[in-house]
């Protein structure tokens, strides 16, 4: 499948990067911010529309990689420019391209200095993120994976809050340290797995148990930092609080998913025995993340921090779903990834709306917004209810599937995870009661209701929250085959059973 005679995946990766060059002429020209914003919006919308053609062209009955491209990139050591997507990557790519116009819109008034540089960073970041989901060559994957760090580092560090430099460096070093061990694993796999970096060929083999365990742990370092799982999450609240709204949305909605994507795409198929071996460990960490993240969220005064910790909690549900190794669990995890992307992204956008008006994110600063901003309050309530997995909203589907999947194998774990659902209702309703309801205290600044560009960023997400909540089947069917294939690969090998 091609677009403008460029293979579609290549187009999706490089279109934003190349198109960002259009912004360069406006770099130092004053009063050009408007043009730059419209250009960035146009580019991201085009990207989204083109990415929809993937949905049409994708055959959901196949688990294999589709839209594949393969060219020799670096002849020494056989590194290929190999792209391809299955149902899992497809959903995440479309989610990415959907959220990017929202991040441009939320920066409409949120970003006031160095707008061209910001938009260039955003577009390059979009290309790299799509590259991560498309790459089927391990080195290429790693290149995109690391290349994302540079624009994100700049986005947090240049346009962030008062403590932005600390947060940016912490984010950068944490993720880099985790990823570098992944690099060693990739190299080791090359020599153990028959001199190739092709992910499909590497995952069709069986590796020795010691190697599997070591390699799993090294990969775990990379992905657990990104998700972030319980002991490795400390960079997240800092990065979220300091990042501009667009940065928070990208971090929460897309980048966190990459860790879970890494587990699904690499750790499970490559090292099935080690995955089984570490299941108790992973489940324990997931449960700790669910409960601990929720309690931390309860204690926050800063709304961004609250949502950041709720992300830790919700991502715990995702890892829980992945490591129960059945179709319901993994499908639920994927649904949860998608829904967390939509809902949490929307919540960050909502906080951005408030922050643009009052420059505060503290719960104590607000109250009685329902009177002042009725439409905004309605949307905020919908997103918060979705985040606490109210039946009928999107998140319910994912969490429910994960709980069913985990109940089959680990009833205790499942019931512990259920407390997370209750706790999330507590902190989200608490937030709503302080912000939306309560007594309105007059402020020196005005709090007008949603502006057109804010409508543009929130409305599509509201629609998705409800539509996916009511009819989740079309989404589930996209990745059903891919998930079934991963689960079939996970059957314990005869060798492992002997132990």
């Amino acid at each position, binding site marked *: 499948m091609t677009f403008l005679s460029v293979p579609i995946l290549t187009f999706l990766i490089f279109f934003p990067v190349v198109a960002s060059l259009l912004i360069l002429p406006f*770099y*130092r020209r004053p009063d050009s911010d408007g043009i730059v914003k419209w250009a960035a919006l146009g580019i991201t919308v085009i990207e989204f529309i083109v990415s929809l053609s993937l949905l049409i062209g994708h055959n959901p009955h196949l688990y294999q990689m589709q839209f594949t491209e393969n060219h020799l*990139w*670096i*002849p*020494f*050591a056989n590194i290929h420019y190999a792209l391809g997507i299955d149902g899992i990557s497809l959903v995440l790519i479309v989610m990415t391209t959907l959220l990017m116009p929202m991040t441009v819109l939320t920066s409409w008034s949120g970003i006031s200095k*160095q707008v061209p*540089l910001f938009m260039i960073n955003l577009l390059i970041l979009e290309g790299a993120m799509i590259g991560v989901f498309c790459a089927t060559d391990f*080195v290429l994957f*790693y*290149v*995109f994976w*690391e*290349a994302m*760090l*540079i624009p994100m*580092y*700049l986005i947090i*560090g*240049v346009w962030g809050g008062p403590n*932005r*430099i600390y947060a*940016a*460096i912490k984010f*950068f*070093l944490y993720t*880099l*340290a985790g990823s*570098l*061990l992944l*690099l*060693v694993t990739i*190299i*080791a796999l*090359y*020599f153990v797995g028959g001199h190739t970096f092709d992910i499909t060929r590497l995952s069709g083999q069986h590796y020795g148990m010691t190697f599997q365990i070591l390699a799993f742990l090294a990969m775990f370092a990379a992905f657990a930092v990104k998700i972030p799982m319980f002991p490795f999450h400390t960079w997240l609240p800092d990065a979220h609080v300091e990042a501009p709204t667009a940065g928070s949305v990208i971090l929460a909605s897309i980048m966190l998913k990459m860790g879970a994507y890494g587990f699904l795409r690499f750790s499970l198929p490559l090292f099935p025995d080690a995955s089984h071996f570490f299941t108790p460990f992973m489940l324990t960490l997931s449960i700790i993340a669910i409960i601990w993240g929720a309690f931390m969220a309860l204690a926050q005064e800063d709304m961004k921090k609250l949502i950041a910790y709720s992300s830790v909690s919700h991502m715990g549900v995702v890892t829980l779903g992945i490591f129960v190794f059945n179709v319901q669990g993994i499908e639920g995890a994927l649904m949860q990834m998608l829904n967390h992307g939509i809902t949490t992204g929307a919540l960050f956008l909502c906080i951005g709306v408030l922050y643009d008006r009052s420059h505060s994110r503290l719960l104590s600063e607000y109250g009685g917004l329902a009177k002042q901003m009725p439409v905004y309050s309605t949307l905020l309530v919908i997103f918060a209810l979705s985040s606490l997995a109210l039946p009928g909203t999107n998140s319910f589907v994912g969490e429910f599937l994960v709980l069913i999947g985990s109940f089959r194998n680990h009833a205790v774990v499942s019931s512990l995870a259920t407390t997370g659902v209750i706790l999330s209702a507590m902190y989200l309703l608490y937030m709503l009661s302080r912000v939306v309801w309560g007594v309105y205290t007059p402020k020196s600044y005005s709090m007008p209701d949603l502006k057109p560009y804010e409508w543009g960023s929130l409305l599509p997400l509201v629609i998705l929250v409800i539509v996916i909540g009511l009819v989740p089947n079309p989404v589930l069917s996209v990745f059903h085959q891919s998930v079934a294939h991963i689960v079939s690969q996970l059957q314990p090998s005869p060798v492992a059973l002997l132990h």
Partner: protein
Amino acid sequence: MNFSPVNIMGTMPEIYLTVLGSLLLLMEPFVPKEKRSWLGYFAIASLFFAMIATIGLNGKGLPLYQGLYIIDPFSNFFKVVIYVGTIITILFSLPYLEKEDIHIGEYYGFLLFAAVGMMIMVSAGDLITLFLGIELMSLCFYVLVGLKRTIHRSVEASFKYFLLGAFAAAIFLYGISLLYGASGTETISGLSAFIQNPGALKPMVIAGMILTMVGFAFKVSAAPFHMWTPDVYEGAPTVVTGFMASVGKVAAFGVFLRVFWVAFSANKDHWTWLIITIAILSMLIGNIVALVQKNIKRMLAYSSIGHAGYAVIGLLNPSRESLFALMFYLFVYLFMTLGAFGIVLILRRKGVEGEEIQDFVGLNKKNPMAAFLMLIFMFSLAGIPPFGGFLAKFYIFMAAVHAGFTWLAVVGVLLSAVGAYYYIRVVMAMYMKDPEETVEFLPNRMEKIALFLTASMTVLMGVFPLPFVHYIETSLAILVP
């Protein structure tokens, strides 16, 4: 010694450069002061001329002068790298020397002679020839480092470098004499043959080997023989620092590799652990001490010590993978180091070189292009894709894993995560803080060309390295006469 036409033809590039360099010195008094840059153009033309001669010899593996001198794809690769590096250095020098008021014609002569010295080093088939090359290069460096005669720091650096360099040369020479005493030969191939027979591993050979290793480690500024590096790099005129840190190191690595892989390949067990120690110490000291530097030249000096540590890993195991890794690494390293020093030497605060990291604060607001180029070099040095530095490190770690030292690769990646901090600190200063100082960045045309060359190579080596990989693959042959 036989001066047959074949021998003369094979050493033509060196002869050209020596003759043209001498000619340059002769021309110098006749060139008026304001036309000095013509000497620079003449030097560039000479280098191009020699490069064509070298490329003409490519693909031929020839032992010349009874094996004293070797022309093989390996040495030709290094020579081409030396030419390119010297040309870029001259491009940076032209305006720099004017601004610093040290524009003397001899500068270009010394640069060319240093290049000849390096070419002799990488082609040497004999330890005495090798020593001549090293000394020719080092003597030119001593002079170039002290070029700012009136500046205290520069003279001090030159003197320090001279004393320590002389010391290292003496140790190296002592090593050669021990080897000669044990084996009765000082050709690399002769040594190799001698060491291969089982009874040959006398303490004398091992002592000689260790002493030569000290000499090489000094030249590539690997720990624990790195002490001179920060002071000399800081004191020398920045353009000379860039030249020493990039081209000088590349040549030293070339000869390090040839001697250890060819002459000492039979007693590999004896030096593997020495190399590993040097690698770990260099990565450790380089990356950790660089964290606390305030002067960017000192920081880059420590970074170059760290990079020497990574490159040394490529020496561990004589194999195609390691050879490729080391050559690729040095190739990328040349461009990113030259580029980084190039930015430092163009940046000026109140007419003085901006050498403090503080001077980079807010550069993005003043000159986005300069900040962006520095960002490329910094991230590339840190080994972050999609820049060349990433692939270079990737291949080095791959060579380490291939040689069976996976743990060494793990140590290397962890230390490079530590090292990333001081590189991104520069990026942080440029992008995330508001400008305070009156810093200006006004490159002229030559400097723009040089910056464009180094930056585009740094990016290309990471994004589309295909042609360069092909070129390096054709050079993966060391002739053993």
